[in-house]
């Protein structure tokens, strides 16, 4: 039965993971995502699962690697500084072709930074989490409902393409409460994990989970094979939301919590006759390049709004490819842009058109 429950974003991730058949969670406390651990510590024993607090983020990601290597649906979560620690393990997971979910409920950085909401790990998530040629599927929820539904989706995507997926949220989404309906999930058919290392049972050759290729040709071949899968992800799995873009002169581009602030600003500006809309990337990798390129071809200006010093704007500029000016409005360090600030920026651009 469809029933809405009022839940914190962090708790919605946790419950959705269990709903999606993830029975193994490895974590380490860090604000503002600790509720995921706390929730799962209560729930996992009741559903026959495991919530294990590791001695560090480094250990937690490697436990996740072990669980994934043995064929289990597994996850870990952290916030920005903790993701930096996990990045070694994430690289090994990517290099070993293992599926799992990594949740980043972002806070301000660099360094210890702050504990307030931020989107300043965009580069890290889409460009630089761990060494080597690798990609993560990066999903950016913008509501508590999506914290849940994209968690479920992330597991299926990871299993389908045998690669790690990241849910890139922020402290506001983690801490805020909204109604969630857990009956809304769609489940995919995912492939069997015949590659898993959990004992050959005398029935098959041994499986090896490994990211080491000492021969450069073999390493190149393995990467090329992986990039073929990446290409398939880019082809099939792009997700985005368009909001009032049809007739828009100015199109905002924003993800996560920022996209919601933009929607409020757009509604206010529309009331004054300014034709403005929003493209909200839901997958940050693969990035919705095609749609953004076509929007840039018909809009008069783009405005990227982010809670960092301007990171996603690089992808916006690449996709727009010079067809129209790309403006940028940012707040950082844990500051959330207000609706008024974004609305003023929209008015400023409208006046210049």
């Amino acid at each position, binding site marked *: 039965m469809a029933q809405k429950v*009022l839940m914190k974003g962090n708790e919605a991730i946790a419950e959705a993971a269990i709903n999606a058949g993830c029975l193994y969670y490895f974590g380490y406390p860090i604000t503002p995502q600790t509720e995921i651990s706390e929730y799962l510590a209560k729930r996992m024993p009741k559903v026959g699962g495991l919530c294990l607090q590791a001695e560090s983020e480094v250990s937690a990601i490697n436990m996740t690697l072990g669980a994934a290597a043995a064929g289990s649906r597994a996850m870990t979560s952290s916030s920005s500084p903790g993701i930096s620690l996990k990045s070694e393990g994430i690289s090994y997971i990517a290099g070993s072709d293992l599926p799992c979910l990594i949740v980043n409920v972002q806070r301000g950085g660099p360094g210890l930074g702050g504990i307030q909401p931020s989107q300043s790990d965009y580069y890290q998530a889409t460009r630089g989490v761990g060494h080597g040629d690798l990609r993560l599927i990066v999903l950016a929820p913008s509501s508590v409902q999506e914290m849940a539904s994209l968690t479920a989706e992330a597991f299926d995507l990871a299993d389908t393409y045998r690669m790690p997926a990241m849910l890139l949220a922020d402290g506001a989404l983690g801490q805020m409460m909204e109604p969630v309906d857990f009956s809304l999930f769609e489940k995919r058919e995912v492939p069997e994990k015949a590659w898993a290392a959990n004992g050959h049972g005398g029935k098959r050759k041994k499986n090896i989970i490994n990211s080491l290729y000492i021969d450069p040709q073999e390493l190149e071949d393995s990467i090329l094979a992986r990039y073929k899968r990446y290409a398939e992800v880019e082809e099939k799995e792009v997700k985005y939301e368009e909001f009032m873009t049809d007739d828009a002169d100015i199109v905002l581009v924003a993800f996560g919590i920022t996209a919601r602030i933009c929607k409020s600003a757009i509604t206010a500006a529309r009331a004054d006759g300014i034709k403005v809309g929003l493209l909200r990337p839901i997958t940050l990798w693969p990035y919705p390049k095609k749609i953004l390129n076509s929007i840039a071809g018909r809009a008069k200006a783009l405005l990227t709004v982010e809670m960092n010093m301007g990171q996603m704007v690089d992808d916006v500029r690449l996709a727009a490819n010079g067809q129209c000016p790309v403006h940028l409005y940012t707040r950082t360090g844990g500051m959330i842009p207000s609706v008024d600030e974004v609305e003023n920026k929209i008015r400023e651009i409208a006046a210049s058109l």
Partner: protein
Amino acid sequence: MTTTMIFAGSGGQGIQFSGKQTAKTAMHQGKNVTFLPSYGPEMRGGTSNCTVVISDEEIGSPSVTSPDVAVVMNLPSFDKFEPRVKAGGLVICDSTLIDKKSDREDIDALYIPASELANENGLTGFANVIILGGLIKKTGLFTYDEFLSLLTGSIPESRAALKEKNEKALKIGYDLV
């Protein structure tokens, strides 16, 4: 129709509880709702606040600069949020703890000596619920019965005293306005 509210006071006054309860009741009505708490060290006795947005439409920003309603339960919160209330909006104060009055003419103000009333009625710790009683009467966002049923509905029978205190506090605030 969209209503934006900020609840603010000191940690331990039940500010987050008040916000959550309001959000829960609105969800029960079938409205869209967001509850955005302040988080971090505030939890341990500093200032505490949260933002609740209730709407018939999809909710954009869950964070609000100028709320329709500000519920303030200490002086720093009054000083911070009273000036931000939208024109035509409402500020509700625990007048036991806030000795100031609003001098704005474009907003409505409600002064409830909630902490005093709580202490007088053996309801220490329930000042926030007295305020909620006043809030629902004044704004008409919820009926008394639906708010009460969600307030006390999840309290087990074994804690009848808690149930009773909540109901008593809500009624005091409701009847006062």
